[in-house]
């Protein structure tokens, strides 16, 4: 019985693709959805220019891509504060300095593949001559958000960053 219900679920998931991660995450607790967008300048009816986010277009070297991760507590219990969201910088991309965002979050970075995380100003890179220098934004390998509040059931939040296609 249980097996057949799972089987049915699988069929449903296949049919309703976008719903799949939500259903799956409901079993586990927090659902995280990642999207990639680019900004296009549009002129509205009032003649004013505004930036509109669209699915990635003109994905050529130099294009700035906005990655947004939406997280939602699908359990019936609050998630303890200080939970951590990690995002490796996408391949063939460079983190755009100062672009990480996230309400109620402490934002840390890594320059060693996610072994150590720290504030931007504390991250050091050793030059070949042995001298240490502050790491450049484009040298970051990971972004980490530490959510400083409890996340009540049903509540969601958004974190993200920009990275340029190399």
């Amino acid at each position: 019985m249980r097996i057949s219900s799972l089987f049915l679920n699988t069929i449903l998931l296949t049919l309703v693709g976008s719903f799949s991660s939500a259903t799956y995450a409901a079993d586990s607790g927090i659902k995280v959805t990642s999207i990639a967008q680019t900004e296009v300048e549009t002129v509205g009816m009032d003649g004013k220019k505004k930036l509109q986010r669209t699915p990635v277009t003109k994905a050529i070297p130099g294009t700035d891509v906005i990655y947004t991760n939406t997280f939602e507590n699908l359990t019936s219990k609050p998630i303890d504060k200080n939970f951590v969201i990690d995002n490796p910088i996408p391949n063939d991309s460079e983190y755009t300095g100062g672009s990480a965002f996230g309400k109620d979050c402490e934002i840390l970075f890594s320059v060693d593949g996610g072994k150590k995380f720290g504030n931007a100003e504390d991250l050091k890179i050793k030059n070949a001559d042995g001298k240490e220098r502050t790491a450049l934004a484009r040298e970051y390998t990971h972004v980490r958000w530490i959510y400083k509040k409890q996340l009540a059931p049903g509540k969601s939040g958004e974190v993200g960053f920009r990275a340029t296609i190399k």
Partner: protein
Amino acid sequence: MAHYLLLCRYVGTSKNLIYIMPSLKIWDHQITKLIISGSLSSLKFKDALLRPLPQLVFYSLTRLLGVCPLLLLIAPQAVLALGTTSGTTVSNQASVTYVIGVAPPFVQTSNTVSFLVDKKVNLLVAETSGSPTPVNTGQTGAVTTFQVTNLGNDPQGFNLAPALAVGNPATGGIAPFTTNDFSAMGLQVFVDSNANGVYDPGVDTATSISTLASGSSRNVFIVADIPVTALNGQQSVISLTATAVTPTTMAALSPTPGPDTAGVDVLFADTSGVAVGDIASDAKHSAYDAYLVSSVNVAVTKTIVNVLDPNGTAQLVPGAVMTYQIAVALTGAGTATNLVITDPMPAETTYVPGSIIVAGLTKTDAADADNAQFSANTISVSLGNVAAPANFVITFRATIN
């Protein structure tokens, strides 16, 4: 003299040595491109990856860098232009680690969001010397040099088209290329196949670039004849237009129409060039150069302007000191390069040490930083590159034996 491209990581500089390490990833932004001319023995390498690179543009060291005799460091960022190859999948995935009550932490990953890198078509045509090519009236096979750079993220072929500028290219031309007085004839275009920066007839025979790697440059020559009717000081402005095409097959490229697709789109990202009709985003770029008829006449006149004999009079007797004047006059148009005036002492005279004066300034006799010297019983004054019209006066003294 061989030319090499060294793909390496710049490690540091100490005294006269530059330390470098080979690198595997040429798109790594820490890579420094070193173009080496001359002996490699005075450099210390640790497993350096050295290979002859025929497609590399060789910059004249003397033109660009007068300080370091062996190395030319091109800005490290230059290699960044390469970019990620089209069709590469860029993916992102986040994860969350959390605790509910006292339970061990859970880890949940997000979906993977990905897209394909599109094809960016971009190129740059540049005139290399910054000044017109000096030619003589009636000269055949006069060469001007351009550089074509692939600024896209994929290898690209390039079709090349030489043309005469129409009228006076008042806009777009760099200052020396704005007046068009005559028309050069029989324009031909050739690729610098052996990347030595010099047009080699019979060797540089290709008329298009079949493949040029992303971020790489190639020299292109326009070879033309100068009509006998062209007068001194007159100029003929020419242009080179390069068009990015499919490598090897040289099939035309076209941008993907309509909205962005899920596949690899083709985008034209070039800026407008100087040639008529060369607009932005047309996979073309162009630049001007010019032929300038330059005949420089150098007239040298030597006279004795003063004589002082031992008796205080002006008799040409043994012991009398003569002041010689050499007047150098350049007329016509153009530049006399590396102009050197030499004057051997007559056997019956003795040079008065320290008496050379060039344009009012006293010079030393030693072969040193000043531009005059006396050696092997000969006065020699180096005037360097002198643009006509110009005049110089050199004086020195000699005693009659």
